[in-house]
């Protein structure tokens, strides 16, 4: 349903834009209907950039993104509006997603004015209430309030309700629960799972591995803009192949067991060499004989539904 084909994003940085920063390089994956796919990575791994490219907030430098067979970069005018009817995003910070001087439900009337100008007031109100109930909010409690009168969890659910008013098929959820408290975040997470049951596809962008496991059936691990491992969530989590994924798994604080007495790896030197493996400088398995420094490993399917980009483990 959504397909990314060798998508890259290069930013020009430096005083006069003389340097290049490869935020995302050569990322390809597909999201099927009714699937939740997690994009997992640390800060700077390019996970949000991918989400923004899908929402067409920024354009891809090379490669193409297809939604139901059409290249989204070529959409404009009414076709683009149709696209936004089907694809919507919810972002990390619910507080800055609203204009504080207007009431929070203005987001619903804006959807009305933009997308459904012919819907009558009563019919529209019914639809807003239905959408709010679908996200577990009581319309009487939350309508007609300013953003500061609602909690973070409520605001975040408002934004999801707004997306539901449209005829959406695909939701980009960019770190939607990282700013919420432990007691409310799980409710928003369950809501995303319920959306999936309604046939929606979700791209769930997160840095928290346990959340990714809880909700998704497929996962992609990103490192410095490249996919280092992808496949079925169970397989990645039960036996991570890439040394980076293994390090991530070992570093996650868990409640069922304590950290092993291994040294946490610190950030390596920033290497801007495009040729080699992005993880070369931190990798315990890196070996010159394998050509990690010179050549970039491609994603190789080690087993069914589980691919890894590493010379040391991919070939073996």
């Amino acid at each position, binding site marked *: 349903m959504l397909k990314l084909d060798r998508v890259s994003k290069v930013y020009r940085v430096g005083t006069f834009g003389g340097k290049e920063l490869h935020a995302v390089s050569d990322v390809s994956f597909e999201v099927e209907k009714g699937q939740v796919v997690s994009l997992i990575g640390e800060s700077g791994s390019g996970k949000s950039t991918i989400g923004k490219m899908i929402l067409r907030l920024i354009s891809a430098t090379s490669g193409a993104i297809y939604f139901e067979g059409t290249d989204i970069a070529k959409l404009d005018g009414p076709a683009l509006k149709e696209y936004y009817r089907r694809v919507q995003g919810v972002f990390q910070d619910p507080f800055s997603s609203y204009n504080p001087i207007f009431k929070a439900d203005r987001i619903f009337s804006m959807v009305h004015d933009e997308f459904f100008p012919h819907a009558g007031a009563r019919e529209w109100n019914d639809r807003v209430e239905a959408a709010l109930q679908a996200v577990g909010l009581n319309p009487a409690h939350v309508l007609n309030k300013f953003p500061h009168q609602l*909690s973070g969890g409520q605001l975040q659910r408002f934004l999801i309700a707004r997306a539901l008013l449209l005829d959406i098929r695909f939701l980009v959820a960019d770190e939607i629960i990282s700013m919420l408290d432990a007691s409310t975040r799980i409710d928003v*997470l369950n809501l995303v799972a319920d959306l999936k049951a309604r046939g929606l596809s979700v791209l769930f962008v997160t840095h928290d591995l346990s959340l990714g496991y809880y909700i998704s059936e497929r996962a992609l691990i990103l490192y410095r803009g490249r996919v280092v491992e992808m496949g079925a969530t169970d397989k990645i989590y039960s036996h991570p192949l890439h040394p980076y994924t293994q390090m991530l798994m070992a570093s996650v604080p868990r409640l069922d067991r304590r950290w092993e007495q291994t040294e*946490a790896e610190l950030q390596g030197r920033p290497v801007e060499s495009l040729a080699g493996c992005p993880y070369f400088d931190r990798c315990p398995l890196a070996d010159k004989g394998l050509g990690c420094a010179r050549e970039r490993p491609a994603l190789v399917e080690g087993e069914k539904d589980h691919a890894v980009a590493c010379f040391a483990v991919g070939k073996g």
Partner: protein
Amino acid sequence: MSLRVENLSVYYQTLRGDVRALEDASFTVEDGEIMGLAGESGCGKTTLGHSLITLAPPMRLVHGRVTLDGEPLPIADMEAMNEFRFKKVSIIPQYAMNALNPTRKIGKMTQELLRSRHVDYQAILPELKRRLDLVRLSHDVLDMYPIELSGGMKQRMVMVLSSLMNPSLLIADEITSALDVSSQKAVVEMLVEFRNRECCNKAIVITHDISILYQIADTIMVMYAGQLAEKAPTDTIIHGPRHPYTKLLIGALPEIGVKYTEKKLRGIPGSPPLLLDPPAGCRFRERCPVAFEKCLQVPPFVEVARGHSIACWRESGADAQA
């Protein structure tokens, strides 16, 4: 020798009245103990941490007494606290990224900081370098500007600065929340290392992330809406909590190995009360599944087992004793 806090209440003064952010907190942190302080945003955990070092307006001490190593700590007196700050009590602030002066090289900034505290920089330089080795920062950082360091490196630099005088009490306020998982692990393990090498005697680690505390803390104290809910050794809090809030909170944490299709976790319905005019009695009452009439009175924070204190009528009240 320990930190003893007795009946500490701290309110914020606002135009609409007092915000009762910390109410009647009594607890002890023993020597060598790393106490984790957990709770949702707005539960008063940062207020508690800050009141032990800078109790500045609009914060106001209502009542309470703090004793550090047998000496009373004059927390309400900003001037008198200067004797203790940095040397006896020190804090690693939230957002350490912004704690370093961007216009000074880090070494220069350290010199200025030490001079303001009447400490000789040259005398302490060897120790400073040892500490940098401990957190695996190169000595070159002293000649660098903060902008040249990554977030995790800045966080480690601030840790070194905060603990340089071997404070008796080190307060770490959300030191991991802005970091990636791999640097998170490095930073909190260094904190434990600091304690083991007696760079600090005891520590209070404030965080909303209980799974981090499970890795490093000796004891965990859970707060809710300005009141203490439960304090116990880490394993007891995680595996055998007794306060209903702690139970629900632990139950709401997703873990690796839990999928929503197999085990659907549940959040806590409702939201915390406003502290401007909090409800009388137990503040968790409204959201509590086991609340009863007695909860209209404030439950005392009492020890129910060795090292396990709890504020709940169900667990410690008359019916529990009967």
